[in-house]
């Protein structure tokens, strides 16, 4: 958890906006102002907002997927080669024990299986999901509107530039409909 700087139980300040465009503009201004420990909440993915919040870093999911695919290919090959050449060799139609063309379908399927599961489970792990509790759910407005039509920006109390009053004024100045305090 972030170290609380001001009040003991404050996670951050949550500002509500009317549309994705307003949220994007506010997020850009917050980023320009120097805030880094922040997050934006939208009911659907908005690529531009995600790029600002993640500081233009690329997602690591594709790398995880690639590693998974390579591991899958090697595991698949190891499985078929070991069983067919060493553990339980069978003479099928006079084919050599290491008949790699015949093994391609199995190796291909293993690659896709491992790659897909790495992408899916890797994404959940990188997002630290499942996360049943998060302070932002303490705000009533977020619970009601968050997943349906709400556009929120949360600046966390752990950020260096966070100040309870000044940050609240800053958020109001970016055009927030309302600024809520988020209990930790």
């Amino acid at each position, binding site marked *: 958890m972030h170290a609380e700087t001001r009040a003991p139980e404050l996670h951050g300040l949550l500002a509500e906006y009317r549309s994705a465009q307003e949220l994007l503009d506010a997020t850009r201004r917050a980023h320009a102002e120097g805030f880094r420990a922040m997050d934006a909440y939208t009911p659907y993915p908005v690529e531009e907002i995600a790029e600002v919040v993640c500081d233009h870093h690329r997602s690591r999911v594709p790398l995880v997927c690639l590693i998974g695919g390579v591991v899958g290919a090697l595991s698949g090959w190891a499985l078929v080669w070991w069983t067919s050449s060493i553990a339980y060799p069978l003479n099928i139609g006079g084919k050599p024990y290491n008949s790699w063309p015949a093994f391609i379908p199995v190796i291909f399927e293993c690659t896709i299986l491992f790659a897909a599961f790495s992408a899916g489970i890797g994404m959940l792990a990188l997002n630290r999901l499942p996360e049943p509790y998060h302070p932002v759910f303490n705000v009533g407005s977020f619970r009601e509107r968050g997943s*349906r039509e709400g556009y929120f920006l949360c600046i966390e109390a752990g950020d260096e530039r966070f100040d309870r009053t000044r940050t609240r004024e800053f958020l109001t100045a970016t055009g927030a409909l309302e600024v809520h305090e988020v209990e930790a």
Partner: protein
Amino acid sequence: MSVADPPRHPVVPRDPPVLAPGHTAASVTDKISSVVFGKMPVWFYAGMAVAFGGVMMLLLSLTKLVFTGIGICCCSGRSGGRRSTASRRR
């Protein structure tokens, strides 16, 4: 067609939209989740009952086929067991 469909235009549109105009994120959410949370129409229960009947029929057929195929007695067909082979061996 019926009242449920939108009015048909005499000229077929060249490039219809992917989502009908006039929707917001909220209205989209409400409409699609109304299928899950709304009151279920009567035909749904009737359809579900018919489908469930089908499932029972499948279960019954598969059970019967497996039992007679294996030859487990007490399920008709060519039932095996001690008595049938013993009496044949003469």
